[in-house]
């Protein structure tokens, strides 16, 4: 009896000391993660605090306080002096339309090309795929000038030639110009192809025997199975489009066509309203935050490149 009780007590003791040991073992990792998080989140915190300061806080001696002293929500909402008074709604709308179209475009082009690379046999397939991958190595800055010239050329044609001008399509100061270079990417093709390759070949064979052609197989078999990968691509594409700066700056001059990033930057240039600019930054950021929180698992899965399945 006592021997049994003693054994149980020992077991409990060793179990709790095991918990402590486990925590101790993880301590360095957690410390590192916390430090990194603080470093990453600090600028965001500063922006959030500054967006609530009154303008006077920036005009006095020394650095502005790192703690919101006054909570001036008017920076966001007051008519005549808040963000809501700038065309921020218009900016957000522009950003949203641009990002949505880019996302849809990438989903469509990447699904089709990834299907071809994953399942079809055609001469030059591997060479072509390598070429697709190579485009991932080309930084935006390299292609931006030729792309811009292409847009100018297109715009000139569409405005000057009668048989095109009736369409009212604009490549400068218009959505077509904002989205065109980003509708198809090597990254999207690569991401989806890697996932499609994990789909058992027999599923496609079975569909083929049942009389499903490529497009139907894509819609009824491959896309439903690749939902997770499609979601990952969608969120990456949307985030990237939303955060673009250089390209929208280049192809838009009309304030009405500004995206939120540019609009806010223009606002910030107006130094007398720096607190409002900070509020605008937060507003530009909030939709992203919501998106990331909502689709976190697809982001993580995308980063791990299919090695983690869920």
């Amino acid at each position: 009896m006592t021997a049994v009780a003693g054994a149980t007590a020992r077991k409990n003791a060793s179990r709790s000391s095991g918990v402590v040991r486990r925590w101790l073992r993880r301590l360095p990792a957690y410390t590192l993660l916390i430090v990194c998080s603080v470093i990453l989140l600090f600028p965001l915190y500063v922006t959030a605090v500054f967006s609530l300061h009154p303008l006077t806080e920036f005009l006095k001696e020394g650095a502005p306080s790192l703690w919101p002293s006054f909570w001036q929500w008017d920076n966001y909402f007051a008519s005549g002096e808040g963000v809501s008074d700038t065309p921020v709604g218009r900016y957000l709308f522009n950003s949203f339309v641009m990002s949505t179209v880019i996302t849809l475009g990438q989903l469509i082009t990447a699904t089709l090309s990834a299907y071809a690379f994953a399942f079809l046999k055609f001469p030059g397939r591997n060479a072509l795929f390598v070429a697709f991958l190579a485009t991932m190595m080309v930084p935006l800055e390299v292609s931006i000038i030729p792309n811009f010239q292409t847009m100018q050329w297109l715009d000139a044609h569409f405005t000057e030639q009668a048989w095109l001008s009736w369409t009212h399509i604009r490549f400068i100061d218009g959505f077509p110009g904002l989205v065109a270079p980003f509708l198809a990417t090597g990254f999207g093709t690569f991401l989806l192809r890697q996932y499609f390759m994990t789909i058992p070949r027999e599923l496609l064979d079975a569909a083929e025997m049942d009389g499903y052609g490529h497009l139907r197989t894509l819609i009824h078999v491959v896309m439903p199975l690749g939902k997770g990968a499609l979601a990952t691509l969608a969120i990456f594409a949307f985030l990237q489009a939303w955060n673009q700066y250089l390209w929208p700056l280049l192809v838009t001059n009309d304030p009405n066509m500004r995206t939120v990033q540019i609009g806010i930057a223009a606002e910030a240039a107006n130094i007398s309203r720096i607190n409002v600019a900070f509020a605008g930054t937060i507003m530009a950021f909030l939709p992203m935050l919501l998106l990331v929180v909502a689709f976190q698992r697809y982001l993580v899965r995308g980063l791990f490149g299919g090695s983690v399945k869920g």
Partner: protein
Amino acid sequence: MARVFFEGITKRFGDVYAVRDLTLEVQDEEFFVLLGPSGCGKTTALRIVAGLEEPSEGDIHIGDRVVTEVPAKDRDLAMVFQNYALYPHMSVYDNIAFGLRMRKHSKDEIDRLVRDAVATLGIAELLKRKPGQLSGGQRQRVALGRAIVRRPQVFLMDEPLSNLDSKMRVQMRSELIRLHRELGATFIYVTHDQVEAMTMGARLAVLNEGRLQQVGTPQDVYDRPENLFVAAFIGSPAMNLLDAEPAQVDGKACVRAGGVDVALPDALAKQLEASGASSLVMGVRPEHLDLSVKEPAVTFEGKVDLVESLGSEQHITVAINGNSLIARIAASEKIEHGASFQLAVAPQHVQLFNASTKERIGP
């Protein structure tokens, strides 16, 4: 009419020959088994019939049509894949109805056909589940349902039972045989499991390295393997194979194997002489070796190396002059490891193969 005829089918993948010059006729409504070890080209042969793979050479005939150029969907056949190939995102109902949706059936008709199929297979209560919520046996049935719902003339089955546990396998074996009888369709059934091949097929074909080795009824192939590969592949435990050479004793033809002269039946002796073979392999099935055989018999002597008791019988490995023989002996015999032991075989059970051509000698 749905006989399936392989006419000189060859399939190359780069330098690899998956199937080599395969000519084979499967009768209408036959249960035909393709048997062979892993990698021998069974799946490839089946995929060529299905139209999922194009032969490098040769033609496939189904019924009276040459279908080599006909797309898979128009060949009027259904395939059950080794891993079932169920669509994980669809319910059982949708999985089974999937193939019908492409074939201009009305909604009511699809519903009736699906319900007929699941009733035949006894899975009516699973219609709403997803494949992930099914056991292996249930998935197997859904895969079958997907095939039978279209009522094709030919069924192609690629090792459909290999993922099931042994009990389930026995049950599904008899169910497939029943299904075949009810459907009256041609079945081509691929397996590497000789028990399945022996019990299910009306006829079977043995393949090795893409080449056809032998075609016949299971009993035929078991009793008269045409070459050493088939002899060694069919049967468990495998046939005993001993190096042998022709000899003469008292003017009678015999073979010397394992240090023993085995007198041959007249017919076999004649054929041996006609073949002119100088080096031989002698084959004896384990069930033909016994403690004693009614005369005339040949006796091998050796030491017991291994005793494997299976409950109903025991497999005894006996070392004989550097060879070893396996015998199936009644479980009632007390046999001890290391003991001296005698095994007898009646001459009519001896099989001979030409060691250089590896072909069978004899009737």
